[in-house]
């Protein structure tokens, strides 16, 4: 990542946010608010997953809610029907997310753009149908009750709201931490190259399938683990969890917060969750607001909150940096053609050729036709 984005994603910002989250249960008006926040964190973890495949890698996965449901049902079935403890069931949920992600990804990611979106929409629907119809395994429309909560450590009891809140916060912090590492790494760059264009990425030697599947599996593991936590906190689930409304909710969170950004998933999820809470009557008809909101966002505000902020910061920083290198504001590229005086020194950050008062790239051009024919630079 460039210096600019580093400023925005500065560890200090994250530490402050984490501190705020840590004190939230003590300043919250009531336990219900803590519960709502914990649930919002759970969804945010899943949205971080969606951000990896859709935001970074550019593949619109419409089955994301299905993988969330798979994780939730894994925990529910194993704890309620088979008497497992929460933690091993939670681990199996993550594994299930990876395995199903691998299988679905291996088939679907060979498809481009629209085909991929439509295919995953169908996969999401198949998951929903199976949850609804496969009575023997999922209890059908009745759903599953009495899901075990996470086992506590010592005197920590996760059936209470506050300890659970901190548990979810821990996983959220982990999700943000991993996403941050991923995003800033060569792997994150690889994913973003694929987002720009499949052809470009391949021409740079990037194995499309392998990297897309990797991004997809990471995203489904996030979703399934979030689903597992959801089962642990809500402790009752039904097939409606697989309804694709949940996928669309998550797309809305991601888009509002800022697709392809580090803090976007969290910002968007929290903002919409609390807005919905603020207007309780909105809950059922929230889509009357969400629907047009989605449309307006993609048309007028496609970068979301975090993305717009980031772009503004980057732009400002870039302007500051180039200010001392670009004395003239002239953007006329025609000026470049007259400035090719041979013999000037190579332009660099410390070049003195600013003195010519030519526009910045006129002089980069100059150094080209001048110094470059002698050949320098590449060892």
């Amino acid at each position, binding site marked *: 990542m460039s210096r600019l984005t580093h400023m925005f994603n500065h560890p200090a910002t994250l530490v402050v946010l984490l501190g705020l989250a840590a004190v939230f249960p003590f300043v919250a008006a009531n336990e219900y608010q803590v519960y709502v926040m914990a649930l919002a964190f759970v969804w945010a973890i899943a949205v971080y997953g969606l951000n990896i495949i*859709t935001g970074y890698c*550019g593949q*619109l996965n419409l089955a994301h809610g299905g993988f969330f449901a798979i994780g939730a049902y894994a925990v529910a079935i194993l704890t309620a029907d088979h008497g497992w403890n929460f933690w091993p069931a939670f681990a199996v949920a993550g594994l299930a997310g990876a395995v199903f992600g691998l299988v679905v990804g291996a*088939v*679907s990611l*060979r*498809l*481009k*753009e*629209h*085909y991929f*979106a*439509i*295919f995953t*929409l*169908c*996969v999401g*629907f*198949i998951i929903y*149908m199976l949850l609804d*119809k496969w009575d023997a395994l999922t209890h059908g429309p009745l759903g599953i009750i009495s899901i075990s909560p996470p086992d506590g450590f010592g005197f920590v009891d996760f059936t209470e709201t506050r300890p659970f809140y901190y548990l979810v916060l821990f996983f959220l912090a982990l999700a943000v931490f991993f996403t941050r590492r991923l995003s800033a790494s060569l792997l994150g760059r690889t994913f973003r190259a694929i987002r720009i264009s499949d052809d470009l990425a391949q021409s740079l030697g990037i194995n499309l399938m392998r990297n897309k599947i990797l991004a997809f599996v990471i995203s489904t593991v996030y979703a399934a683990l979030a689903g597992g936590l959801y089962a642990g906190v809500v402790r009752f689930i039904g097939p409606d969890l697989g309804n*694709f*409304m949940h996928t*669309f909710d998550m*797309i809305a969170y991601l*888009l509002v917060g800022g*697709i392809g950004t580090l803090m976007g998933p969290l910002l968007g999820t929290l903002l919409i969750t609390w807005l919905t809470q603020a207007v309780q009557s909105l809950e059922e*008809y*929230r*889509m*009357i607001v*969400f*629907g*047009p*909101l*989605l*449309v307006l966002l*993609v*048309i007028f505000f*496609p970068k979301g909150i975090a993305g717009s902020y980031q772009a503004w910061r980057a732009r400002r920083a870039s302007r500051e940096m180039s200010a001392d290198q670009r004395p003239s504001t002239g953007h006329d590229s025609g000026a470049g053609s007259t400035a090719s005086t041979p013999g000037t020194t190579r332009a660099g950050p410390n070049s003195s050729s600013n003195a010519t008062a030519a526009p910045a790239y006129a002089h980069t051009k100059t150094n080209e036709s001048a110094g470059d024919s002698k050949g320098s630079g590449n060892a």
Partner: protein
Amino acid sequence: MEALLQQLLNGLTLGSIYGLVALGLTLVYGILHVPNFAHGALYMVGAYVAYYVAGELGASYWLAMIAAAVIVAGLAVACERLVFHPLRNAPPIHDKIAAIGLLLFFEAVVQMYWGADFRRLEAPSNTIFHFAGLTLPAQRMLIIVAAFSLMGGLHLYLKKTLAGSTIIAMAQNREGAFLVGINANRVAMMTFAISGALAAVASTLFAPINLVYPAMGHLVLLKAFVIIILGGMGSIPGAIVGGLIIGFAEALGGFYISGDYKDVIAFALLVAILSIKPTGLFSQGVR
């Protein structure tokens, strides 16, 4: 044998409806290269308009169908103007998300007015014909006849009229169409209008035997997508043939294999086909 014939007839009914919905979807895809996720919502709105006009205002079924077609056509054009047109040069994810936004909006509005309950649209005739041991309800006959007349009409419109041929021209070659001076905006609006009207007529035809509810468009939309992938995205004959294939597969599969899982059959087919041939069965390399 009779059971088989009966199921084939049911398959033909289903296939006719799916074909109409898929036709609209494939036309829009051919012109704008947008998979219109809101198409199922247009289908649903069509049924509600018909329900309102016939059920609540007490007008005739036929008037209700015309009203549904006109209103949904207008709605589709509005979607094109206000949403898809501004997004025509946006990155590929954006138009899909916007289409999903439209879908959510239409459903929420309908649900606010009518609730999530199932409603029934009365058929124009409840006569049931019996022929050679087969049961032929009048509504099913109407569906088949109406659907194929519409498809025939659409074919004539696209092939024989100037307006129709511009749609074909633009679907085949967008750049070429601009060069010969085709008004792209008009073609796009016309295509959306046709697609909306087809969806509304399909849902008005199907509603008397399949109830009216806000989520009624979901499955139909997904199946229509399966159909146009099967038939090649943008291909008009592909949509009709694909619709019939899915209709028959569902009727026969539902009868001979499992009624519970009949809705999965279409998707299982899709998964199987795309696993083998990622660009669809009859695609002409359009992608």
